[in-house]
């Protein structure tokens, strides 16, 4: 296969210094996670791991069936960009696989390292934290895996297990916490959201002489638009595109200040938050009694 960048030479540990800031206690409390790593973090992680393996049989399957053929090795953009071998999908999955083998398989329990398994300790946890937060869960490797192993699901499982022991990144937890405060990832409060919409209306009037509305919280509109909050704040040309389209087609629409975010960062953290954030969409649709929900770009 032709790749746009040459396959880099292996540079062991070259991306190891790129570590996300740890989560803040106040955000962790808000999103129902332990505010810090408890003394029995290892037990907490293994308990969660047992739960994950039981709930997501795909994860157990993916951990069992890899034959280390290497088809995925040069498919990850983070390996292509850094040359760090732990950014090869197979090696990334192995971080979790080794711990799984040690505690959940007969071979690992009996023969330990000879069976390619590893104790869960500080070093292993550090590797998990660094490299599972260098995977963007894009699933590109899974397209090329002859067994269909989806490393994104392994990353999700690992992040869920770490979160149960109070280990998560500042960025992701902050964003999830913001959604519960403001309804969106950027933390735009309702008055600011309305202000931005009014500004876009004025702007369209001044520059193009168009009288187009950007309705907010309009009960009974036909369409509820759930755009990414960045469309209201940064990518405003996209927002203008939606408004012009609705205007031209004569469809009544609205955004909601309770739920104005299409992206769900629960996916990057744990299942409980993923579900809770998604439910906000249904709640917003109920509140505004809309007929259709459309996702923004």
């Amino acid at each position, binding site marked *: *296969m*032709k790749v*746009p*960048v040459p396959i880099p030479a292996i540079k062991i540990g070259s*991306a190891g210094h*790129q*570590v*996300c*800031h740890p989560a803040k206690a106040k955000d962790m409390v808000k999103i129902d996670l332990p505010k810090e790593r408890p003394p029995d973090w290892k037990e907490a992680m293994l308990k969660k791991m047992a739960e994950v393996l039981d709930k997501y049989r795909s994860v157990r399957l993916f951990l069992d069936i890899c034959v280390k053929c290497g088809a995925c090795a040069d498919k990850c*953009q*983070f390996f*292509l*960009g*850094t040359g760090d071998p732990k950014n090869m999908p197979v090696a990334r999955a192995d971080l979790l696989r080794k711990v799984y083998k040690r505690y959940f398989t007969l071979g690992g329990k009996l023969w330990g390292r000879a069976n390619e398994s590893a104790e869960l300790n500080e070093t292993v946890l550090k590797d998990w934290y660094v490299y599972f*937060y*260098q995977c*963007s*869960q*894009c*699933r*590109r490797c899974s*397209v090329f895996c002859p067994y269909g192993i989806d490393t994104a699901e392994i*990353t999700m499982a690992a992040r869920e297990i770490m979160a149960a022991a109070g280990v998560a*990144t500042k*960025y992701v937890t902050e*964003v999830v916490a913001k959604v519960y405060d403001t309804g969106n990832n950027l933390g735009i409060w309702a008055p600011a959201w309305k202000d931005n919409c009014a500004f876009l209306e004025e702007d369209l009037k001044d520059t193009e002489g*168009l009288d187009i509305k950007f309705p907010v919280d309009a009960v009974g509109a036909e*369409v509820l*638009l*759930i*755009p*990414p*909050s*960045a*469309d209201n704040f*940064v*990518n405003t*040309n*996209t927002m*203008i*595109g*939606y408004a*012009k*389209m609705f*205007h*031209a*087609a004569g469809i009544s629409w609205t955004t909601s200040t309770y739920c104005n975010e*299409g*992206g769900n*960062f629960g996916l*990057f953290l744990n299942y409980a938050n993923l579900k809770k954030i998604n439910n906000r969409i249904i709640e917003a*649709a*109920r509140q505004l009694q809309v*007929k*259709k*929900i*459309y*996702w*923004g*770009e």
Partner: protein
Amino acid sequence: MDFLEIPYPLHICDLTWDLIKRGALKIDKEANDSLLVTYHDPCNIARAAGYFQPPRNIIRATCNNFIEMHPDTILEKTYCCGGGGGLLADEIMEIRLAGGKPRAEACRATGANYLATICAICKANLPEVMKHHRVNCEVGGVHDLLARALVLK
């Protein structure tokens, strides 16, 4: 409203493409003639949701100049922009830029000056990536193109 009556969410591109197909929108494609547009498939919309064609259809309907990137870098083989999955944090900027490199190089090879995409994370990370790898290409949305081409008067 009953739980089952909650409408199933659809993507805005479905609606837009439907309106275009039915001839409900008047479009002047020449408004986008200064652009050579290429399209970046965002991971979760493309690979996880199998949503490939509607945005492309809208681009073709609103622009005269559309070029695809190398077939190994689009559709289900698309590259991540480098900032997805909760990696859009400033402290790991090096990783974001490194991860975006394959996408930047694939874009450079087309010579496009506008890279359209339908993911807010891609729109946040790719401009940084393009700047760092010195690819002279604006990053924006698909509806931005529609906004320019839509005739309202």
